[in-house]
């Protein structure tokens, strides 16, 4: 069965198309679909059109209704998508496995009573649509085929695909989608929003990531990681344990329920190496681990493992980097 239209649910990040959307559009182009379109909701959607088009969306279906920024997005976005699906009947809708992607896809699946696969890493479309997911810390790979119900919904972990501009892309057609906002969703309003602005490169894009876990002992010691990261023009990451403890914001979390990073070098400091963490960093080219426990599982995947006190090693590392010429 030939694949009809594929939609990519494009999130906005500070009024730009989120990187995840561009990754998904790039992948969608390779599936042999009849057409690839983006769907984007939010007051800034208009500003994202050009970039979505450059990455392969022939049509951008958008709503700039302010309610999409004032309310929790999940309910209104699922309702609006459901109405658009009924009209245009896409075969497949791709989402980034982000908080918002999960909020929208989970509701939409229930609303349309269609299958949904979460945590996807790859997708193929031939006779059937098949999604690859990894479980148990990416030690096992599972391939799952969608049945006949359409649209099929799939969520992909960020960084599963590279984002690339489509050769010869022309400006996309822009189609306004009527927002469907039911009264019950007006009950959940966003009253405040804050964005963490980290200095230096973004965690997902940094060439070097210096990550800290519970072994860093307290929030104050993260300053040392920041200093080392800065000297390396890198970014600071963290394990979920320290995010849950409130030492650093969630935006720094690496792992299954955080960011996926693929830097040239990943330095894990005082991180035990639970599989939910390693799934987010095992794609690094080189992994360095500093842990005082020689049995820590992180050493099983480290190219260089240092058994020792992370704070002492990091201080020495900072000093040595500072004293390097140039």
């Amino acid at each position, binding site marked *: 069965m030939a694949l009809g239209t594929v939609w990519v649910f494009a999130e906005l990040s500070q009024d730009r198309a989120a990187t995840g959307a561009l990754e998904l559009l790039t992948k969608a182009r390779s599936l042999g679909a009849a057409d690839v379109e983006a769907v984007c909701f939010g007051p800034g959607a208009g500003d994202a059109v050009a970039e979505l088009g450059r990455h392969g969306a022939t049509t951008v279906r958008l709503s700039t209704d302010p309610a999409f920024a004032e309310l929790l997005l999940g309910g209104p976005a699922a309702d609006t998508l459901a109405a658009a699906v009924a009209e245009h009947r896409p075969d497949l809708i791709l989402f980034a496995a982000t908080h918002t992607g999960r909020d929208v896809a989970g509701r939409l699946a229930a609303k349309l009573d269609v299958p949904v696969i979460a945590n996807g890493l790859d997708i193929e479309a031939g006779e059937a649509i098949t999604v690859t997911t990894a479980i*148990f810390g990416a030690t096992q790979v599972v391939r799952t085929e969608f049945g006949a119900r359409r649209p099929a919904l799939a969520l992909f972990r960020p960084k599963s695909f590279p984002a690339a501009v489509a050769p010869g892309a022309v400006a996309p057609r822009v189609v306004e989608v009527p927002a469907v906002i039911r009264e019950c969703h007006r009950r959940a309003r966003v009253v405040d929003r804050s964005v963490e602005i980290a200095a230096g490169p973004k965690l997902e894009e940094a060439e070097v990531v210096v990550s800290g876990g519970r072994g860093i002992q307290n929030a104050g010691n993260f300053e040392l990681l920041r200093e080392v990261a800065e000297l390396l023009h890198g970014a600071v990451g963290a394990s979920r344990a320290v995010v849950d403890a409130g030492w650093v*914001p969630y935006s720094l979390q690496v792992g299954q329920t955080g960011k996926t990073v693929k830097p040239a070098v990943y330095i894990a400091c005082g991180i035990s190496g639970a599989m939910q963490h390693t799934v987010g960093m095992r794609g690094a080219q080189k992994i360095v681990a500093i842990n005082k426990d020689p049995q820590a599982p992180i050493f099983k995947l480290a190219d260089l493992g240092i058994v020792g006190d992370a704070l002492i090693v990091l201080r020495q590392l900072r000093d040595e980097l500072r004293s390097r010429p140039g």
Partner: protein
Amino acid sequence: MNVVVCVKLVPDPDSVGQLDATTHRLRRDLAEPVLDPGDEFGVEAGLRLVEAHGGEVRVVSMGPERALDAVRKALAMGAARGVLVTDDDLGGSDALTTAKVLAAAIGREPFDVVITATESTDGYTGIVPQALAELLDVPAVTFATGVVSDGTALTVTRQTESGSETILAGLPCVLSVTAGVNEPRYPSLRGIMGAKSKPMDRWTLADLGLGGVGGAGAGQTVVSVTTSEERRAGEVVTDDGDGAHRIVLLLARARVI
């Protein structure tokens, strides 16, 4: 306030998981099952709401007979009543099926707040809360890191990809909580003893009027499970003062400095 908390029985997260080679389902015989540690935060959040505003916490679980243990632990922590939906047809249920069953069980009585974790420790599809909210036709306030209530609405701080936001949500709603939203209490000895006499219902799919929603009804089929290539360990050395220097050498070889 009528609070429902969803609780799931999962294999002990400290043991290594494995899929059955032929059924492609999680092997639950390998590890001692426990109440999902993530759900303890949900139970605690529910208890705090009713302690402040009255009402009671009802816990709902879908799973095998043994999931009664998870429900019992929640009762020992202080929940008032429990429900387990258990049925042979539910083995291998996908996220949507799970949400349908939970919604049917929850929707039998009025509720103000339904609490879940953000994802389960074993399945971690992380979309059951949202699907559940859709089926119950209420908003889903997800990824909560803080919850306060005046009794008629919730003020929730939640994680976003780039920071955080504050949501004011009227009732009823679904609330998914992250670890770190609170410090779950340990069941007291009195709580454990008392749990035995608390009301506990056991329902089948037929009791809920649901037919054909189980594993066989799922819209997706696992076609293969393979072991991925392992990363290999490199050298592990004990730091005797030159650890930092070794890292610098590696950074230089990787051409990042």
